[in-house]
């Protein structure tokens, strides 16, 4: 059995690489979309920096809708959109689009929670000192919420890893794909076990790293 696994090592390495690629690409893009949305969700609330009932409600509804669709269904449902956007609904590019659509609203929600933790009184203090809204968002809110934002990105990354495994179903490659092809379709138990163990290790590492970094930041608080 050990021999067979050794034989498959290049396959594992490739899958790990593919998974990480999908996670990194979608995480970066989803973060770039999710963070501004999270900020909007906070500042458009009543009595905040830029109250706007319409933007707040519409964002809320869209995010709730996307968040309530299971990833596997979302992936299939947006195939036409994915094809228009990247020309193909399979492979890494094909998987990244639904992964982003799935993760960005998640990050927006987590960002919202993290930013709401920032004391309203502190924001008021800088408003009264004549700071502009952009300065308050960038230099006060985001800065004060950093530990929370880090934990939010950690959770989002782990969620993404779970979703990439499902993306294997559309032949996106990666560890999920490997587990499906060998483990599920050919009933190759050792390969499936190893895949699962690798996934567990990756998730553990990311969570520990996130906790460690957030705690380091929080130490002074």
């Amino acid at each position: 059995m050990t021999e067979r696994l050794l034989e498959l090592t290049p396959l594992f390495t490739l899958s790990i690489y593919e998974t990480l690629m999908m996670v990194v690409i979608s995480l970066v893009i989803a973060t770039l979309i999710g963070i501004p949305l999270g900020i909007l969700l906070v500042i458009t609330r009543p009595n905040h920096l830029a109250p706007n009932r319409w933007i707040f409600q519409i964002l809320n509804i869209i995010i709730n809708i996307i968040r309530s669709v299971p990833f596997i269904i979302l992936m299939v449902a947006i195939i036409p959109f994915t094809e228009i956007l990247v020309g193909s609904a399979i492979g890494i590019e094909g998987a990244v689009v639904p992964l982003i659509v799935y993760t960005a609203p998640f990050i927006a929600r987590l960002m919202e929670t993290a930013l709401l933790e920032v004391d309203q009184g502190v924001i008021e203090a800088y408003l009264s000192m004549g700071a502009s809204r952009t300065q308050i968002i960038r230099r006060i809110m985001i800065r004060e919420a950093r530990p929370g934002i880090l934990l939010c990105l950690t959770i989002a990354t782990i969620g993404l890893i779970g979703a990439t495994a499902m993306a294997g179903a559309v032949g996106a490659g990666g560890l999920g794909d490997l587990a499906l092809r060998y483990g599920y379709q050919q009933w190759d138990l050792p390969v499936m076990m190893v895949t699962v163990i690798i996934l567990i290790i990756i998730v553990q590492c990311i969570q520990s790293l996130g906790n460690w970094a957030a705690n380091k930041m929080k130490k002074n608080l």
Partner: protein
Amino acid sequence: MIELIDIHKTFRVDKREVEALKGVTIRVRKGEIYGVIGFSGAGKSTLLRMINLLEKPTSGKVIVSGQDLLELNEKQLRGARKKIGIIFQHFNLLSSYNIFDNVAEILRMNKVSKQEIKRKVDELLKLVGLEDKAEAYPSQLSGGQKQRVGIARALAMDPEILLCDEATSALDPQTTESILDLLLDINEKLGLTIVLITHEMHVIQKICDQVAVMENGQVIEQGSVLDIFSVPKHNTTKNFMRTIFNDEMPEEMVNKIKKVNSYTTRLRVTFRGDAAMDSVIGNISSKFAVDTNILYGSITSIKGTALGILIIQLSGERDIVEEAISYIKGAVYHVEVQAQKEGKQEVLNT
């Protein structure tokens, strides 16, 4: 310096209306410490937030340093706000910044040069007595120290006005004293105009020049601290005064007065400056054939002027007592007849 003219403010909460301010007018002169006192919900914070327009009035005028703030656009308003420092009951410091950065951040936002920031922040930390805490974080400081950081931060932009929203309410009495001393100090050193709100008369007594008493969204009494303390008119003001001069007569005292057989009056006598209290009292006994009884006496200092309150009881022949009262009236700042009794009759007005 600051003029709030006929300010009305109505909050709308779920279709219900709360009238927080009902036509308030106050004027604060340059360099003075202006205190606003009132019970919880009186509208003090709302009033204070009008001065930097954190809250817009429903109607009325807000004039600060000759500028009508309501006519400024957003950018001009931000400029005006930079000249108005503010400190809070809960300090509102940045927990992820150390003390140096807490004071420096507003300067960085205004693109002040690095050397200038270093110079300014060091000077401010020295002023508030925290030069050795520059590297500490707010969580490592006591309440009083946090408020000192708040004060240093509020002074960073060289404001002309400092607003204090219950700045000492979260502090113990001793720390309160030291923060009040610091406020007095910067008022004198920097010529800063200070508006502070509080529900402690003691704060007003210690550092304010002028005071406004608020109740239910209105100013019910205002004037110099010395005047208001000498002769408080409104009941709420009198109640606040009792936290300093507790001149309420105990029940037994009042009953005892009722037992006296001759014509008796109870007077509340206010002395100011160094109008010699003892000589007046002494003179009454020697000049008039009346019995003098001191029921209560207290003396305090308000910004360097002595203020004494005395409650005395005079009894004897009606005419002579009246004569003695007019003599006292001529010698002291104010006399209020609190109660009088004719021979065996009951107390007329208490």
